[in-house]
């Protein structure tokens, strides 16, 4: 559709992103990377996330990418060498669920269906929450619309190049994603206004009606495009509706669908609706009851982005158990951990460490939950999330095992470039100048019901 859709008023999201991304790509490969000398981190315990841990290993970064990983690497003589004896190296941490840097604009809570909201429009690249995340080793984040709405807005994927411009922080080539939600938050937000939906029945009816409308809209455009393709010069373009266009893109599989929901019955309902209308669900977020139906959901190929051990903060989190992630993983579900919080994003490594405790994840499995699997949730696992040749040079050096209580991120590299160094005075940032902005919304409102009542849910 976009190829033949006129864009009289507003550049379509896809093209808009494409413009931004092409600019970033140029920037990353030419302007920056060539000025960064090759870097070799050696003598470290290298946790690759994809192919195990290498003791006394090395990682070589060249032109912003990973050029070598192993016991030894063939770096050129001029490369900068960091001797990381006694230290640990991991891929940059990936947080697949955050509301950082979106100020107080997380929820367009005026209608339960707002798929044309673009989170890029709220993105504040100077938000200090990004700095705190960077200092915790987080190099990639998915910044999502909140959970007030059944169908929220389109999220943005960022590389945490803190100190760079807004557009330079966007993740070039990341797929478009959209946020859905069901359960208590939309119930509360609209129920309290005496509007639909105030129940789970209402939740899903709103969704079904939206997709029924989108089907009609899509059929109209498909028919028009078919006529144009046949050379029909008299074909009249249907009215362009941003909301239905976005839903139509969901039906066409152009958006990865990320769904906030907690309960096992809701996973099943969401999958059934997805099948009915012909789209795939990329991941359930929170998903605290996945351990109950993991085997079923694994068949649909849907992953989860879950909390390590959050529970009890609301009714739909009452059956949460800290073994959820590992049990779901053993059932074949792709499992990532996420922060949903300006606080927890700073120590996702510890949250992963808890997976060794709760359910006996191997260190490899635990690390993958905050790197490669999290990248998969975002659809960027071909670019980041593991220490493999050709992937982005996003690397963290830790003082000790990152899965322990005692780990601190000492140096954080993104695209081969140093962005954070804890040994530096002041903030420890290398590219940031100016004044950091406040946290605004402050991350999760699932963290406390009180916040949720104010914020409308995310």
């Amino acid at each position: 559709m976009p190829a033949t859709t006129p864009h009289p008023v507003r550049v379509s999201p896809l093209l808009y992103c494409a413009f931004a991304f092409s600019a970033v790509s140029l920037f990353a490969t030419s302007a920056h990377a060539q000025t960064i000398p090759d870097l070799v981190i050696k003598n470290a315990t290298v946790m690759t996330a994809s192919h195990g841990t290498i003791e006394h290993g090395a990682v070589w970064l060249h032109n912003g990418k990973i050029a070598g990983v192993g016991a030894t690497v063939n770096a050129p003589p001029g490369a900068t060498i960091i001797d990381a004896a006694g230290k640990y190296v991991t891929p940059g941490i990936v947080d697949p669920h955050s509301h950082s840097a979106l100020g107080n604009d997380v929820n367009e809570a005026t209608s339960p269906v707002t798929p044309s909201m673009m989170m890029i429009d709220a993105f504040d690249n100077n938000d200090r929450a990004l700095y705190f995340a960077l200092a915790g080793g987080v190099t990639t984040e998915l910044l999502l619309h909140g959970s007030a709405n059944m169908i929220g807005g389109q999220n943005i994927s960022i590389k945490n190049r803190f100190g760079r411009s807004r557009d330079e922080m966007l993740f070039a080539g990341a797929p478009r994603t959209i946020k859905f939600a069901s359960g208590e938050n939309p119930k509360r937000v609209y129920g309290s206004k005496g509007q639909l939906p105030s129940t789970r029945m209402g939740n899903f009816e709103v969704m079904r009606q939206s997709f029924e409308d989108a089907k009609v809209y899509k059929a109209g455009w498909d028919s028009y495009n078919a006529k144009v393709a046949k050379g029909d010069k008299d074909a009249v373009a249907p009215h362009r509706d941003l909301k239905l266009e976005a839903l139509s893109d969901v039906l066409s599989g152009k958006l990865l669908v990320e769904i906030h929901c907690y309960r096992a019955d809701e996973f099943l309902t969401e999958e059934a609706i997805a099948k009915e209308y012909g789209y795939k669900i990329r991941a359930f977020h929170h998903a605290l009851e996945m351990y109950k139906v993991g085997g079923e959901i694994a068949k649909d190929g849907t992953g989860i982005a879950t909390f390590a051990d959050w529970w009890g903060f609301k009714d739909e989190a009452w059956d949460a158990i800290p073994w959820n992630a590992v049990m779901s993983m053993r059932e074949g579900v792709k499992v990532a951990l996420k922060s949903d919080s300006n606080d927890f994003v700073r120590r996702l490594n510890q949250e992963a460490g808890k997976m060794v405790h709760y359910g006996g994840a191997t260190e490899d499995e635990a690390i993958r939950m905050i790197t490669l699997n999290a990248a998969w949730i975002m659809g960027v696992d071909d670019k980041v999330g593991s220490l493999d040749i050709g992937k982005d040079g996003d690397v963290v050096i830790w003082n000790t095992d990152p899965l322990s209580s005692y780990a601190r991120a000492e140096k954080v590299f993104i695209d081969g470039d140093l962005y954070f160094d804890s040994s530096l005075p002041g903030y420890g940032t290398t590219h940031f100048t100016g004044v950091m902005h406040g946290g605004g919304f402050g991350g999760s409102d699932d963290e406390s019901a009180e916040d949720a009542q104010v914020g409308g849910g995310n």
Partner: protein
Amino acid sequence: MNKNYSVILSEASKRAQRVEGAQPKNPEGARARHTATLLFNLCTLAAISMVATAAHAQAIMVDTTIKPGITAIVGGKLLTVTHGTIENGVLLMENGKITAAGPAASVKVPKNATIIDAKGMTVYPGLIDAETNLGLTEVASDQVNNDLVETSEEIFPNMHVYDAFHAETEHIPIDRYNGITNAVVAPRASDTMPGQDSFIQLAGRDRDQMLLNRDVSLAMNFGNGPKRGGRGEGAGGGRYPSTRMGEITQLRQALIDAQEYMKARASGTSKSDDTASGKEGKGGKPGSKFDLKNEALIPYLKGERPVIIGVEEGHDVEAIMELAQEFHLKVVLSRLTHAQGVLDKIASYHVPVIVGPIYELPEAGERYDAVYSLPAELQKRGVKVTIASYDNEFLRNLPYAAGYAVAYGLPYDEALKSITLYPAEIFGVADKLGSLDAGKTANVVIANGDPLDVRTNVKQVYIDGIAIPMVTRQTRLRDEYTPKQ
């Protein structure tokens, strides 16, 4: 290996195998499991509907009444807190008390003792959380079941959390599962003087067995939080006190009133004793009216019990300390987070400090580790630092907060004390709790590693020497849904 102990470990390892060894199930297996699930849910539903007002709280109570017999935990690494680390140690428990904790070479195991083989394990005293809301809330968003704070007045020293403490809360087994055996229950910090705290044990036959000290300390708060018209519970815009001036004035007036009351009662005349109808209080002098609010403050004006002052910011500490010193209160500073500018001043008060939560976000202009490093910075200045969770759902993560303080410079031994001996000292129970010493209560934890590390699994908790069943609502759900081989 002793029978008891093999039960502990094999249960745990069986669980691990069941989870780790899980293979894709055949459809029949899956269906059977779902049927079981359905039945389970139906049963749960039935149970819940029978107790509609307390739908969630059905924790199994553990009677900790002393039982005869000697238990010997042998071969483990003892973190005694008071007398160092003992590799290959022996810990004896009898009549609910620790009777010995020392090296295997010097502690004789009685012949009739039940032996618990703790080889490869770490043994340490039960952890103490210096501030929680345990038993005052079940599901945070369910206002109808929340008893966090009485909001109708700000000055309420006569509110006693033990009147609301719900001993059957499902939170307690879940928290003790991670080695927390004692806690302070405090009202929420949204008012200047919201009530008195209770010191509890996380096991007992009933509420009374769990309440070790009903009115252990007075909660007092100052700063942005207690302002009315802010975001506090029940906050109505523009209500007094809406500024720090208002808070201090309100507190000072309350303390003056109580002082006058105390003096009047001591001399047999009370200001409020102006009518013949004045109700005579228990223990009061003839004719004097017993006033619950003023009466509640007397032990604190006499300095008999600690006042826990919740105050986050440096300049607020200075303001509230002036007031506290004016009335000679026995001060414990609490909730300290953004006080890096006045660390030396804080040290000069020579009062205990409860830090945290150390996960509080730094303020504008602060470095990322400004709060993480606060415990270490205070400790360097000679302050005894206690770490609290100030929480309910995240309470079980208390030891990890102490571990994180170590990552940012707090010596390990001090971190361990911050959640054992130091809180015991603050709340006047260091003769009974907080270390592995003969004569203390047998609240003991056996884990498979470092208690402060997130990867460590607690294997067994003892409270009053009783082996606590390592079962929680969450382990029951886990076991119910773990695929059966």
